[in-house]
Structure formats: structure tokens, C-alpha cells
């Protein structure tokens, strides 16, 4: 009766062979195309280094000023400005300034990349049922697949370092950008679109003058989500050599440095809140036409 209590499985020799075949062929693929692929992703390296140099090379008072300016521009709220500056000052005082700047540069690069890829894909998805049907399961996989699993082939191809880290972060942070762009465009009032059609708008005019502006609040929510997901990936990305706040956390886990872990953890939370408040406030201000509504 053992066949009832233990699930019948393929012969272990088969499974072993199957794994070996896949592993071998991927390894061959890596050997023959690794350099090519590395070359393909080289611009990412440049982008990352540029962001990192920018943030690390700029004197800290200027960074504080810029953040304060961004916070004010986005929210017009003194509370948000003071909160943002205070967060950064505390991070600096506790000796985590450089790591924080590295993390922020990584998150910024990942966000820029996610928007650059996600926005057009989201638009395409909103325009075609077929694209939506194809893309949806892929996005599901991207969001549910444990990140360590797709780190393996990335590391095999590109080794350890910033670029594979960035790719891992983008894979993780991209889906909300695509999904919410798609959703935002699909939610645009049909009457409004019919009106733009009736006045002879081309597809491009319809997209830029009606669909994107009206989807913007939802798209902004997507950007906000993307930033948050990118921050969440920082610690995992640290495992494959991404510099920043994730590294000390990793060290703290390995050596049981409780305080070190706590400080860096709080720093991540701090910049998460900072990013979140600023991007949300900006998203809200984009909808100012909806604030004053007629009774």
C-alpha cells in the first residue's frame, strides 16, 4: 500500500538527468553568450554609477536642500518638508549617510528603469486584449516567484555586482508599474474618449491629451508602489553584492549585531516613508481639478 501514502514520482535517475541537461545547456549558453549579454547590460552599469556618483559626490547640505525643495514642490506642506529633512539628518548623524545615498541611487535607477519599461508596456496592454492576456501570467510569475530563484540565472550570466542587483530589483518592482498603467488607462471614462474621437483625435492625440493625463493618478500610484517594492528588494539585492543599507543588515544577520541591524533597518523604513509621502503628495496634487467639486 505504499503507493497510496507516498506520491508516485518519476524515477530519480530521470529527474537527475533532466536537471543535468538543463543545467549543462544553460551553462553552455552562459559561456558562449555571457560576454555579449554583459555588453548589452553595460549601459545599466553606467547609469547606476552615474546616479551613485551624483548622490555621493554632492555635498550633503545640497542634498538636504534638494530633498526639502522636492518635498515642498510635491506637497506644499511644511510637515512633509520637515519630516523628510529630519529623517535624512538622523540617518546622517547615525553614520549611515553614504550607505543611504547608495541605496537611494539604486532605488532611483530602478524606478527610472521601471517607468521606462513599464509605461510603454502598460499602454500596450491597455490597447490590446491579446497583449493583456499574454502579459498577465508573466507579471504573476514575476511577482510570486521567490526572488532568489531568478537571481540564480542572473548571477550566472552577469556575476555578482550592481547590474545583476539592479535587474533583480527591476524584475520585482516592475509589475505594479505595468499593471497600474494598464488599469489607469482602461478606467478612463468612455464618454470622454468618445468625445475625443468625435473631434477627430488621432490615436496619439487621444493617448497624450486624454488617456495618460486621466490615468496619471493611477500611474502615480504605480510609481509609488514601484519605489516601495524596489526598497524592499534592497536587502536581498545586498546578497549579490549591491552596496547600500542592505549590506550592514546582512552583516548584522550573520553576526547577530542587533543594534547595527536595527539602525539600518530603521534607515530603510525612514527613506521608504520619505519616498512614499513625497510621491503620494505629488500624485494628489496632480488631481487638483477634482478637489473642488460642485454641489
Amino acid at each position, binding site marked *: 500500500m505504499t503507493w497510496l501514502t507516498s506520491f508516485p514520482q518519476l524515477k530519480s535517475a530521470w529527474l537527475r538527468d533532466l536537471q543535468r541537461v538543463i543545467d549543462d545547456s544553460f551553462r553552455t549558453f552562459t559561456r558562449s553568450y555571457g560576454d555579449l549579454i554583459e555588453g548589452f547590460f553595460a549601459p545599466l552599469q553606467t547609469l547606476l554609477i552615474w546616479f551613485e556618483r551624483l548622490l555621493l559626490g554632492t555635498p550633503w547640505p545640497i542634498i538636504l536642500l534638494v530633498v526639502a525643495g522636492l518635498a515642498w514642490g510635491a506637497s506644499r506642506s511644511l510637515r512633509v518638508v520637515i519630516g523628510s529633512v529630519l529623517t535624512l539628518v538622523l540617518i546622517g548623524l547615525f553614520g549611515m549617510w553614504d550607505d543611504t545615498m547608495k541605496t537611494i541611487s539604486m532605488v532611483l535607477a530602478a524606478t527610472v528603469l521601471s517607468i521606462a519599461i513599464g509605461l510603454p508596456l502598460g499602454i500596450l496592454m491597455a490597447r490590446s486584449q491579446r497583449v493583456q492576456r499574454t502579459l498577465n501570467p508573466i507579471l504573476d510569475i514575476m511577482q510570486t516567484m521567490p526572488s532568489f530563484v531568478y537571481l540564480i540565472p542572473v548571477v550566472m550570466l552577469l556575476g555578482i555586482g550592481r547590474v545583476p542587483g539592479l535587474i533583480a530589483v527591476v524584475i520585482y518592482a516592475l509589475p505594479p508599474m505595468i499593471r497600474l498603467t494598464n488599469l489607469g488607462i482602461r478606467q478612463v471614462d468612455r464618454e470622454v474618449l468618445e468625445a475625443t474621437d*468625435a473631434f477627430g483625435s488621432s490615436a496619439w492625440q487621444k493617448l497624450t491629451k486624454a488617456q495618460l493625463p486621466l490615468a496619471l493618478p493611477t500611474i502615480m500610484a504605480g510609481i509609488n508602489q514601484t519605489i516601495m517594492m524596489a526598497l524592499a528588494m534592497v536587502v536581498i539585492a545586498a546578497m549579490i553584492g549591491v552596496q547600500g543599507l542592505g549590506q550592514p543588515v546582512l552583516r548584522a544577520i550573520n553576526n547577530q549585531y542587533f543594534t547595527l541591524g536595527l539602525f539600518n533597518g530603521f534607515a530603510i523604513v525612514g527613506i521608504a516613508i520619505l519616498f512614499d509621502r513625497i510621491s503620494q503628495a505629488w500624485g494628489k496634487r496632480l488631481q487638483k*481639478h477634482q478637489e473642488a467639486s460642485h454641489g
Partner: protein
Amino acid sequence: MADPIGIEIRNLYKIFGSDPEAHIEAVRAGMTKAELQREHHHVLGLRDINISIAPGSIQVIMGLSGSGKSTLIRHINRLIDPTAGEIIIEGRNVVDMPPETLREFRRHKTAMVFQKFGLLPHRTVLDNAAYGLEVQGLSQAERYRTAMRWIERVGLKGFEKSYPSQLSGGMQQRVGLARALANDAPILLMDEAYSALDPLIRYDMQTVLLDLQQEVRKTIVFITHDLDEALRIGDRIALLRDGSVIQQGTAQDIVMRPADDYVANFVQHVDRGKVLKVGAVMVQPQGAEPLPDASIAAEASIADALRQMAAGQLQALRVHDPKGQPVGVIPFRNAIDAYTGSMEANP
């Protein structure tokens, strides 16, 4: 301003469903809407519509909800593609236009006003009114100048920097009207444009439209489910029921000679005194009887004639045309009969 142009709708059919072409012959052969629905799960939207709209006139298309009137108006600028039929405007069949031509046609020949306004909520009144011109590719200064003129004309001066959500329904529809008029297209399509407005504002907006029409002379297709509105503004009215035209003609035709019980039922509560014109019920003077001294215009309503006769205690009025020439006589008796509906009008 462009000269008014006419619209010819010929043998227009629309069937909604997965395979409309398959059933067009059956519908042509007389299959009813209910049969089509029951046996083939297709919905008959329009059946054999033939309407000829004169340049510079107001054509009202009227019917209850589900009669196909909004479907019909969307065929004129082809927001909906017909299953069969033709729409001829300036000698061109709109149904056959390739996308690029259709877009140019929509930009320059038609403008549309929507029941729910269809304004862009993220744009100011000014930018909404200028939308059609923006799509045409005019410079900002040019389109703002034109849009401002129409915003003032529809009575929204001072609100050009407001957003639609800050305006009442009536004001939003004025923006919709300004947007359509700024386009300076010879054809104006109004899809239940006033149905969402409350009665006083609706009356007000009808007046705005009639006043404007005096200046701009556009070919206006006006959809409504409100008979009073139809009778007030329509030069001609087409009555739609279950996707077919059951009667078309002037307001007088429809009130005095309803084609069937459905129409008769529809018009029985109409204020006939206001709708019927003296010219439609007058009689030719008989023999050598002298014409009455008191006179009334043929364009005046029966109610006016009755008021005048009652005030002067007269038995008849002389009827004159716009040039002042006598064209007939309206006896008190005939006016009363027409008013109460107990007399068929002279054809």
C-alpha cells in the same frame, strides 16, 4: 463660416452581435427585432433608416430610450459603423471613408455635444473649449482667441480658468456647446445634449441654441426623448421606435396627423395651442365675403390667434404672410377645433 451642408441617410441598418452580416438579409426581408433577438441573439439597432436633412435646418430625432436614436446619431460621424447603408455628406459616403479621411471629416465637418458632456476633467474650461481646434493643429493663441469668443457667447465669461467639476451641469453643457461651436463645423450633432439638465435650464439652453442658429446656420441633428423639446426646436422631426422611423415631418404634421396610435398617444398631451400655427389651420376666404380687418401672421400660434379674437370679440382673423399679403382667414370655430383636436387640419 462654411456654407451649410445637408445629410442624406439612406437604407441604414445596424445589427449588434457577433455576426451582424449574416442576418442582414433576414432583417431586410422583414424579421422583427424580437425574432432576431430570440432566434439569433443579435440586437436590431436600426432598420432601414432614410432621412434627408436639409442644409441649415434643425432635424430632431426623437424616441424613447432603446429606440436607437443615440445609435443613429453616432452613424453620422461614424462613431458606430453601420451594418449596411449609406450616409452621404457633400457627395461623399461617410461609411466608405478610410481612417485618415474620416479623421479629417470629423475635425472639420462635424462637431458633437454629448448628454454627459464628455469634457476632459483635467482641463480648464478654456482648454476644453479649444480642444477641437487643438486637434486640428492650430496655434495656442489662435485657438484661445476663438474659444474665448464662444465661451463669452454661451455666457461663461469669467469661468474660463475653472475646471469642469467646479461648474454646474448647465454650465458644463455650455462648455460642451462652446467646444462644438468653436470648431466651426457645418454639422452639429447633439446627442440628448439637454436631457441631463433640469427643465428651466433646459429651456434656457434651447433658447441659446435657437438664438445661435439664427447667426451660424448650421445643420443640426438633435436627439431627444422630450416631445416638447422636439416640437420647440425641430424644423423637422423623425420619430424612432424599435430602430425604425415611424413618422417624419414638421412638428405640425406630427401633432395633427399622427401616423399611428403610438404617435397619437405620444402627442396627446402636447399643448396644441402653442405648437400649431395659424397657417396650418386657416381656410381660403369664401366668395365675396369681405376679409376681417384684424390680421395675424401665418407663423403665429393658434393660442395667439384665440387670444387676439377673444380680446377683440372677433369671429375671424385675416391671415397674412411675412410680407403682409393676405393669404387666408382663420375663423374662431376652426381655431377652437384645432386647439381641442376635434378637427383634422386641411392638408
